[in-house]
């Protein structure tokens, strides 16, 4: 272990930890884009889609639960790892080109094994993306709380004036 650098570690074939957050963070970023698209069109969808009408009836604050979508889309990238971790299929099979459907899993696994420098950059990018998504989600809620406080104050003012 003496004098071992992070780069040497990854060259040795990931003896410490398999870094899988890159796939998850790509998924989380894609999930955030999906959520942003739904957020923009949700009022239009309420008028046209029966599903969204049902959703509004069941839970008027349904959009507050949007991180679930981010998590689900993020999980899509981890499916090949879950498959071979649980022993359904071997690693050789989960690294065929068919599994590129899961956010280019096979391509990135190939990069992880052959190009450790690029892999370390990708992992850093993954960490950055994940931090942006996590903190961005929290900032969204802060904005919602501030909006709700102002809306409630205006509502109570209008009621008092009546």
């Amino acid at each position, binding site marked *: 272990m*003496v004098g071992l650098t992070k780069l040497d570690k990854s060259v040795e074939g990931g003896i*410490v930890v398999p870094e899988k957050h890159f796939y998850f963070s790509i998924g989380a970023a894609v999930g955030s884009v999906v959520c942003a698209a739904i957020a923009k069109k949700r009022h239009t969808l309420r008028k046209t889609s029966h599903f969204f009408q049902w959703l509004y009836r069941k839970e008027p604050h349904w959009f507050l639960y949007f991180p679930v979508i981010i998590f689900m889309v993020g999980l899509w990238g981890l499916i090949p790892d879950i498959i071979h971790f649980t022993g359904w299929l071997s690693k050789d099979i989960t690294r065929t080109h068919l599994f590129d459907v899961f956010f280019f899993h096979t391509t990135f696994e190939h990069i992880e094994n052959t190009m450790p420098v690029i892999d370390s950059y990708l992992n850093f990018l993954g960490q950055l993306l994940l931090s942006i998504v*996590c*903190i961005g989600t929290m900032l969204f*809620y*802060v904005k919602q709380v501030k909006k709700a406080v102002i809306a*409630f104050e205006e509502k109570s003012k209008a009621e008092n004036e009546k």
Partner: protein
Amino acid sequence: MSDYLLSDYLTGAGHFGVGFVAGFFIFLLFLGMSRKALWVRLYGPFIPFLLGGIAAVPYFFTYKLTCDQPLWGHFFFFYPFFHCQPLFVKFFGNIHVVVVVCGLLYVVILWRYIVLVKYIRRYGWSNQARQKRRRRHRRA
């Protein structure tokens, strides 16, 4: 858990996990001290991220994974102290444990935000103090 997940020092993720958990407890402490302050509920959940980030910063700049760490690391949430502490290494040295613990704490943070938004949309924030006073009045 297999042995290859464990090492004799904390990685960046492990340091982030230590900082995140400590930050979460600091947030809970602040929350207990001033429950009526909205800003604690709004910005308090950022403390775990801030502390976790600070705790992991030296990992990006010290390219040695050994236990002899520079003294300046202590400014970043006692980085050299946590780096080779056997108890912390045993728990936070496993990436899966860090992911599960931080993930669950993040879910708690988001859940609190959702409950807060729903509450304020329904009752507003300034009303909460009044309602509490009324309840106390009724009990008395």
